[in-house]
């Protein structure tokens, strides 16, 4: 629980942070905010708190895991799809075809086995549901490889899987035809700000980056365990011989957009952008009813999206705490401005979010543009999407 104290005589806000990150603290200092003076652990003398994930509310929604845990995200998307009348969602322009076929372990193990045998040449990717930075991820070609997580030999008559650790896993069809640039695989990191779930208000950031692998991509089975070929996480790639501190394997989204438009044409580029927007909106819509909305909460998500060689974007996962570590000067600039723009949206002129009305007409603040604002006439949603696409471009 938290309290907001508004000081009548001194409007200078006090801040507290669980992270010693320069991009956060520099922003707070630049705004003239004072560090909360009380003892760290039990300090309640703050207005602004950059917090860790659990039970900390200001820059998170209480149950964001519905969106940001891989298993919950899959579950919610499947539920949302089932609930929609096909006609309605086609009319609305929604499309669910961005999630690779996924099974949640241990519950859906037997379903997975059926599908596994139906697609003999399919590679699968196995991920712990709630971990990050590429930890525990591996590619699967043979069911026996699941011994890694079950601790016991896998037999053909097994209908359930007992996992060594108590965590869930998600197992998805591996997208083995990613879009390659310069022969290397990459995924996209995009930033999305949600200031409200009911009604849904979504802002999208114009800067982001592609995270590149350091090795040339190959589907050669011999390289299936080579993480430097397949996993784009910086936490993994930084250990490659070819890793460079100067660019950190990060390729700006502006450069990527320019490449796609120049090499594939404007139409293909525009479709890709529209599809990415669809992923963001559909995924957020799918958790709209389950997320505990609170007007004192906002959340910045890091969307991980993979493009295949048909320029079709696939949703990999959504992060509630996207990394704020800065690996290069360009990276630092991006994240510094990102946090600055977030506070310009959620606390404009240090005003607390009671005055939603004032903000409704503004479509662009800093690098953020409104992607979707449900409080506007729902019937105009499709037009709004088209308009915000133009703004974003």
């Amino acid at each position, binding site marked *: 629980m938290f309290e907001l104290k508004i000081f009548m005589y001194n409007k200078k806000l006090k801040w507290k942070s669980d992270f010693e990150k320069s991009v956060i603290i520099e922003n707070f200092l630049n705004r003239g905010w004072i560090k909360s003076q009380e003892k760290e652990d039990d300090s309640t003398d703050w207005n602004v708190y950059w917090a860790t994930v659990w039970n900390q509310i200001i820059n998170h929604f209480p149950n964001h895991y519905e969106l940001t845990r891989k298993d919950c995200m899959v579950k919610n998307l499947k539920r949302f799809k089932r609930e929609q009348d096909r006609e309605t969602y086609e009319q609305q322009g929604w499309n669910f075809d961005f999630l690779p076929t996924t099974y949640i372990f241990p519950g859906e193990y037997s379903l997975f086995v059926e599908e596994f045998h139906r697609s003999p040449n399919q590679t699968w990717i196995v991920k712990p549901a709630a971990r990050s930075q590429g930890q525990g991820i591996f590619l699967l070609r043979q069911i026996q490889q699941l011994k890694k997580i079950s601790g016991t030999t896998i037999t053909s008559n097994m209908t359930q899987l007992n996992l060594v650790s108590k965590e869930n896993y998600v197992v998805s069809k591996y997208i083995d035809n990613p879009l390659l*640039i310069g022969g290397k695989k990459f995924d996209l990191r995009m930033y999305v700000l949600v200031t409200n779930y009911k009604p849904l208000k979504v802002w999208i950031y114009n800067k982001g980056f592609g995270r590149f692998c350091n090795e040339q991509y190959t589907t050669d089975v011999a390289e299936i365990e080579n993480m430097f070929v397949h996993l784009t996480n910086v936490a993994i790639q930084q250990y490659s011989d070819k890793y460079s501190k100067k660019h950190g394997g990060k390729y700006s989204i502006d450069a990527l957009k*320019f490449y796609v438009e*120049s*090499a594939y044409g*404007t139409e293909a580029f525009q479709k890709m952008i529209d599809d990415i927007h669809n992923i963001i909106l559909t995924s957020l819509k799918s958790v709209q009813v389950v997320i505990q909305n609170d007007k004192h909460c906002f959340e910045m998500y890091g969307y991980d999206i993979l493009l295949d060689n048909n320029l079709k974007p696939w949703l990999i996962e959504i992060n509630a705490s996207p990394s704020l570590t800065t690996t290069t000067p360009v990276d630092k600039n991006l994240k510094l401005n990102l946090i600055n723009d977030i506070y310009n949206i959620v606390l404009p002129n240090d005003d607390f979010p009671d005055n939603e009305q004032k903000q409704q007409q503004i479509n662009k603040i800093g690098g953020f543009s409104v992607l979707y604002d449900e409080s506007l006439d729902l019937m105009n949603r499709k037009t709004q999407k088209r308009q915000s696409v133009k703004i974003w471009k």
Partner: protein
Amino acid sequence: MQQLDNQEILMKLKSSKQFWDIKKKIKQGFNDQQKIGVNDIQKFAQSCEIEDQLIKLISHILKKSKKRETLKEDQIEFLNTSKIKWTELLFKNLDIVHQKTKNQEEDDTNTDSKLYIYDEKNLLAFLQTFKQQQHSALYQNVQFQSNKLLNINIPLKSSQQILDKYQYLLLQEELQDEKINKIRKQIENEHLDIELEKIAQTFVPNGERCLLYLKYFEFDHQETILQQNFTKLQKECLNQLFYDELLEIDGHEISEDTFYFVFQEQILTCLKCFIRDKTIKENIRIQLQNGIKKEQTEFQLPITGFFPFKNISKYVAPLCYLSTKIHIIYALFKEFFCRYFCFLHAISSENNSILSLCMQIEEIISTHSPKLFHHLKVIGCDTLKLIIHQLVYCFVGDMDPPHILTIYDQIIGHDSLEILVILCVGFLNKYKSKLLLAKNYENVQQIFQELREDKFQELVQFAYKQ
């Protein structure tokens, strides 16, 4: 020069789609008429601009029939002998570099910073030596200005002419979607290089740039041939050359660039093919090196007829944005180099040569910004030394790729490198106030080391500011 006779011209006309469009238009114009005289057709053609279109089409055919000739001899004899001296110097550098690489192998040291045959500083330093070497007779008709770095008697366009030519860029506004769509259709339907040049001068939409370039170079129906040629060259790369090592080292800088690191392998492949490409010697517009084949040296000139130089990777890098197909990137790079970039490394009095461009820049800065010109000289950092890197490498590394490709559009649009003069002048004007406060070369370097973003339109604006 091969002259086509009327019959041949007609044959070529008949293979052009535009010819048949014109013919259809004339037929429609005369509908049911039975007797049509030559005068009638002429009158009709003049009235609806068909005559103009035909003239353009025929001149296009005549232009294309001319075999491209490589400029070997310069009109100024002094520059011919200088070219030989330059080549000799480069052969010496090559020996030094080769020795260094041998030593490195033994010592296993990691510094490969000086492993190139020449860079832009070496080139400028060589051009500077002309002042001392010229006969006094050459200075007779030239007002000798000792404050300029390069001041030799070569025929130079007036700098006002260049400034006037590009002034239209100041008036360019952001185009509406409707206008952009119109340009897109134009590019799809157009074949004539004059018309494509006009489009390139005004605005090229990102999605159609590759098509425009391919059409302008007449590659648009030649993909199979381009692919075959490239595959042949790739096979030849299996035989290692010493120059490959230098190209790999050159690629290190581009591999650190946030805009180009993803293309590192493609750039190297293109360059390795380039130095093995026999067709370059006959396609290049100007001969770069002129050396007597030496008996004792271990290496000869590559088959292209010139040495690879430092930062050659920069000429390939921006083109990697235009296509997913490496043989297309290669074909574009080869054409750009043979038509335009070669002049940036040519000891020549041609308008596009590095010498002329440098002299134009000095002329404009010394007359329009004399304070800056003088100040830079006093602190030991001449104007040309400051911008030689941006000039020789077309601002690659200084501007983002979309802006670089806008420069390339202008180069095609005017069939000239003069846009670089405008941009260099703009660049110097942009940083003028900071430069005037600099006390020495180190200060100047600090100014340019800060995070900066130079944009095409911005530099053009600055070029015309007083």
